[in-house]
C-alpha cells in the first residue's frame, strides 16, 4: 500500500513538473548544418516529414534520449537527432554547447546507482547499490542485496570502499573491501529453523566498462566471511554482473 502511495505521489509530481514545463521559455538556436530533418517521433524509425535549412531559427522544446523536439519558425514541431544539432549556434553567434553525455561526464561523475544479478553461494542474487565518488580512484558504495536460494533467503546490507585502478580508461579493473550485516531467513517449508542476523566482511575485484551516455557495465567477484554464532565462520562466494547509471 505504501508504495502505491509513493507511485501516486511521484505521478503527481511528474504532472506538476510537466505543467511547469509548458510555461517555460525555450532555448532558441540557429541551424548551422546545411539542413536538419524533423522526424515524427524520437527514433530513427519515425519518418522525416519536414526539413529546415541553415540559418533558420528553431526552438528546442525538450530532449528525450538522443532526440530533441524542436519547433521551426513556420510552426512545425518534430524530433531531430542530436548529431544534426551539434553545430547549431546560440543567439549570440557562439556555438551552442550541446549537453551530450560522454566519457568526460563519466570521468566527472559524483553519484552512481546500479543493479546487478548473479550467484551468491548457489542462490540467485539481485543487488542494488548507490555510490559516491570521492577521488577519480576512490569511491564509497552502499549495497542492498537479496539472495533467494533453495533452502534460505538472505538480505545483506554492506558499506564498501572501492579502488578503481585506471579511472581514465573506458574499461578498468577495481578492488573493493567492505562490511555489513546479513539476515538469513530459512524457507517456510523447512522445520525448526529461526531467522538470524550476522556480521559479514568482504573483499572483491571486478571490472567496469563505460558503455554510452550514463550507462556503465559492471561485473564482479566478491568473497564474504559471515561471522556466525556457530563455531565456524561461513564463507560465501559471489559472482554478479549488471548495469549502472551515473549522475
Amino acid at each position: 500500500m505504501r508504495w502505491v502511495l509513493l507511485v501516486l505521489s511521484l505521478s503527481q509530481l511528474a504532472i506538476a513538473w510537466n505543467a511547469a514545463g509548458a510555461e517555460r521559455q525555450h532555448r532558441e538556436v540557429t541551424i548551422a548544418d546545411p539542413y536538419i530533418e524533423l522526424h515524427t517521433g524520437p527514433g530513427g524509425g519515425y519518418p522525416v516529414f519536414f526539413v529546415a535549412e541553415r540559418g533558420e531559427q528553431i526552438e528546442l522544446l525538450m530532449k528525450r534520449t538522443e532526440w530533441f523536439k524542436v519547433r521551426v519558425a513556420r510552426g512545425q514541431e518534430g524530433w531531430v537527432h542530436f548529431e544534426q544539432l551539434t553545430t547549431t549556434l546560440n543567439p549570440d553567434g557562439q556555438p551552442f554547447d550541446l549537453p551530450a553525455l560522454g566519457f568526460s561526464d563519466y570521468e566527472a561523475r559524483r553519484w552512481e546507482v546500479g543493479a546487478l544479478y548473479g550467484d551468491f553461494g548457489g542462490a540467485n542474487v539481485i543487488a542494488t547499490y548507490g555510490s559516491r565518488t570521492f577521488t577519480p580512484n576512490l569511491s564509497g558504495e552502499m549495497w542492498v542485496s537479496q539472495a533467494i536460494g533453495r533452502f534460505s533467503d538472505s538480505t545483506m546490507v554492506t558499506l564498501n570502499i572501492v579502488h578503481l585502478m585506471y579511472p581514465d580508461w573506458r574499461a578498468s579493473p577495481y578492488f573493493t573491501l567492505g562490511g555489513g550485516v546479513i539476515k538469513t531467513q530459512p524457507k517456510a517449508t523447512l522445520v525448526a529453523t529461526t531467522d538470524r542476523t550476522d556480521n559479514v566482511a568482504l573483499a572483491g575485484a571486478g571490472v567496469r566498462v563505460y558503455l554510452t551516455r550514463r550507462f556503465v557495465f559492471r561485473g564482479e567477484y566478491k568473497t564474504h566471511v559471515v561471522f556466525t554464532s556457530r563455531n565456524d565462520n561461513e564463507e560465501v562466494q559471489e559472482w554478479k554482473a549488471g548495469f549502472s547509471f551515473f549522475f
Partner: protein
Amino acid sequence: MESRVLVLLLGLTLCVGGLTGCARDRLVQAEDTTQPPVIDPDVARRDIEVPRIDTEDFEVGILAGQISVEDFGVNTVAGGRFAYHVTEGFFVELAAGRADTELTSFERLSGAAQLLTEDEREYSYYNVSLGYNIFPGEHFIGKNRTMNTQTYVIGGVGKTTFAGDDRFTINFGLGMRLMPLDWLAVHGDIRDHVFDIDLLGQEKTSHNFEATLGVTFFF
C-alpha cells in the same frame, strides 16, 4: 631637546603631507584617463540567458490488470513502474505489484482444507528489467490525429513473495506504449512471471501470466 622633538614632528607632518599629496596627484592622473576617448567602442555585449533544456528520460506510473497465479485462480493485480530511457531503444524498468489470490480448486471442493493462511495468499512481486523498443510506430486516429507508439520486448529478474516464501522470479513479455502526448503514455503489457514453487510437496516451475494496462508520465 624640545626643538628636536619639534623638528621630528614637523618632519613627520611633512612626510605624511607629502604622501597624501602624491596620492592626490595619482588620483588626478587617474581622473585624466577616464575622460572620453576619441573613439568610443559602444558595443553592448548581448548577454543572453539560455533557458535550460527540458530533458524527459524518466517515466513513472501505475498499472492494473489481471494475473493468473498457477493453481490459485485469476486475480486482480495493481502496481507501479519506474523507467529510465537510456537510448531511443533501450530502457530499464523497475516494477512492483500485488494481488490477493483466491482458493485453489482443491480447497473449494474439499470445503475445509486450507493450503495457505490469509497472509500467505497475498502475491506480491518486484523486478528489474531491461526493455527494448523493437517496433517504433504511429497510430492514425481519423484524418488529422496521430499518436506515436512503441512496441517493446522486456525481460528481467526479481522476487515474488507468495505462499510464505520469497521466490526468485524471471519475467519476460511484450508491451506497447501509446503516447497521446509527449509526456503521457498508456501501456498495455503481457508478462510471464516464472518461478519454482514446492508448495504441494514437489518442486515445479510455475508460470504466471499477467495482462495489465497502465498510465505513465515522462519527466
